[in-house]
């Protein structure tokens, strides 16, 4: 992965920054959709290098952040059951449900395991035929193909003690929902390259056209993001509103066709609730009826869920770009990564966590 060096070269970055400054004549507000981009922007201090008027608004693209409380509470209830091995990616473990998190369930005796791939969960199911193995299948279009593949494999291998607790979300409907908001300030989007590497770019030109908004597909390294900002500023300054692919080394316009075919077979589109935002029509995937036997929601009847969000937490306003993390009254006080009120603080890619982790100095210095 030596190529990573090439995409964080300070001299090239300086050149791009200079071009952005030269091109900018007035303030612009653009949203990076993906939490990985937010993390990279804050970690490398990229927003500190931009012209004063160019504002990066941090979007809803952190899968951990937007997973609805109801699903997390359901996950906690399933994970606490005897006989269940509950598998998840690491960063879901500390996300607060209404009353506790997966670490607490583990501490209380639940068999909760961190895995690095859903196929690891399937292997656990084969190794433990007397246990029920559940994988927490969350995320955007990026993680969905591997989860779909795992369900496909489970059926092919006849593994009956494996199921998926699904809460996948889709980016294009979220972009539409943000643009439909009457208080929307977003004038352009940096779209997430890894989403497009799976799904292609076809969904974006209609959005650019309908909402008259530039959408530039970018990667996650510093130069990727700066190039995305540069192209976005050029479009805005020139009054254009097009979808551009600034990440051609990973994104083909048609996407990953075998992955898309797998997704169409295993999942179907559904309305999905986004934590902190609300329900967005057709913005998620659930298992299609022919794979219902692998649906953990159906396999484990969980009926006593009473969700309770923090009344202080303004995670939803952060996710929609209405406020910056430190503008929430609870930021850094009642709400820290140690005691998060909302998922934007607990997820390593959440905007609140990024600000708390990397920007406290600036916030303390501010008058």
């Amino acid at each position, binding site marked *: 992965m030596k190529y990573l060096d090439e995409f964080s070269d300070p001299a090239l970055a300086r050149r791009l920054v200079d071009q952005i400054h030269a091109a900018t004549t007035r303030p612009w507000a653009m949203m990076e959709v993906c939490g990985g981009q937010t993390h990279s922007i804050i970690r490398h201090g990229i927003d*500190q290098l931009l012209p004063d008027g160019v504002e990066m608004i941090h979007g809803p693209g952190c*899968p951990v952040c937007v997973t609805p409380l109801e699903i997390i509470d359901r996950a906690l209830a399933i994970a606490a059951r005897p006989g269940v091995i509950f598998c998840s990616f690491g960063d879901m473990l500390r996300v607060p449900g209404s009353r506790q998190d997966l670490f607490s369930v583990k501490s209380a005796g639940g068999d909760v395991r961190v895995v690095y791939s859903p196929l690891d969960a399937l292997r656990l199911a084969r190794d433990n035929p007397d246990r029920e193995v559940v994988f927490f299948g969350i995320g955007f279009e990026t993680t969905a193909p591997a989860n779909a593949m795992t369900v496909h494999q489970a059926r092919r291998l006849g593994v009956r003690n494996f199921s998926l607790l699904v809460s996948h979300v889709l980016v294009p409907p979220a972009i539409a929902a943000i643009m439909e908001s009457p208080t929307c300030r977003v004038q352009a989007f940096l779209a997430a390259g890894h989403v497009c590497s799976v799904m292609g770019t076809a969904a974006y030109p209609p959005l650019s056209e309908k909402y008259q908004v530039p959408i530039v597909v970018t990667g996650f390294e510093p130069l990727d993001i700066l190039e995305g900002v540069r192209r976005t500023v050029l479009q805005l300054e020139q009054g254009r509103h097009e979808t551009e692919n600034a990440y051609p080394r990973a994104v083909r316009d048609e996407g990953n066709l075998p992955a898309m075919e797998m997704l169409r077979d295993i999942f179907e589109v559904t309305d999905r609730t986004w934590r902190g935002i609300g329900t967005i029509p057709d913005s998620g995937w659930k298992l299609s009826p022919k794979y219902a036997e692998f649906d953990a929601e159906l396999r484990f009847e969980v009926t006593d869920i009473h969700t309770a969000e923090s009344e202080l937490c303004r995670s939803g306003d952060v996710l929609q770009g209405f406020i910056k993390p430190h503008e929430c009254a609870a930021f850094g006080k009642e709400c820290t990564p140690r005691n998060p009120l909302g998922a934007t603080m607990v997820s390593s890619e959440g905007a609140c966590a990024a600000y708390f982790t990397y920007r406290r100095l600036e916030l303390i210095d501010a008058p």
Partner: protein
Amino acid sequence: MTETTHHVPAPASAPAGNDLDFEGWTCPVPLRATPTVVMGHGGGGAMSAELVEHLFLPAYGSAAAPELGDSAVLTVGAGTRLAFSTDSFVVRPMFFPGGSVGDLAVNGTVNDLAMSGATPLYLSCAFILQEGTSLAELGRIAQHMGAAARAAGVSLVTGDTKVVDRGSGDGVYINTAGIGVVPDGVDIGPRRAAPGDAVLVSGDIGVHGVAVMSSRDGLDFGTTVESDTAPLHGLVAAMLATGADLHVLRDPTRGGVAASLNEIATASRVGVELVERDLPVPDTVRDACSLLGLDPLQVANEGKLLAIVPGDRADEVLAALRAHPLGHGARRIGTCVADHPGMVVARTGLGGSRVVALPVGEQLPRIC
């Protein structure tokens, strides 16, 4: 030199039985978030520190935190100063590229002693074994311990063995404690960092953590990263031989460089300014961290040390480090400053800045 207090007064409000009343506890806020021990309490970050400061120390009756260095320095008899330290090793897997839990159990305690400038002398060793553990594996671990002790010039002089029911433990847990002698005139402690001091590191960071992660199930980074586990007292002796007044030494194990520097910044009330491009992060570590969404500054090391030394002696100490086989990759990575006391800040490669945070608990690989 701050001496560790031997006197243990009765706690002001000793908890009765098992009914810990967190509302009435000395500082209830940080601990109320989780009423049970979770994995993060052992992660070497903020949660570990809170457990020590808000649960253990108040219960032990130490009103003010003692000098929480890697080892305690005790004066016995007519001015002889002993360094005393203990550590437990529960690493999984027990064998990993470049070492095993046996190497760690010896080198870890040797290094804790070395970080106060001591010459390590004697170690104890206590095993907690799970019923059913392979004797062949236990034998290999013991061999590794013996070899590590001989290499470090220390003797394993006392020990203990307990066996717990199958399911009550996980293979082999090892506790080691050690004592060493601190030479006259040496005064090293976390409160001594001062503005203008240089921050040095003895070589590549993050190697041990990535080696252990790479040997866990399902992770293969395509290249083998070997743990850097090693005894560091020779390196410390080389630095002391320059005659420079070493202010602080730390081996940045769990929680990595970020946790150690945050602890030093807090204890000394100085700011620490790192220059990101000067951090020695090997490509393999950086790539693995990039894949998993981890910060190399927060990844564990086992054979590296951080040294805070007066700025005008930095080059000399650096040269002494580089002349030693374990320190040839030593670098100056930053400076102690009067600004932002208690905080560690990195200048990024692109010219921005970011806070280098104390990790909260366990490191969590991200979803995508």
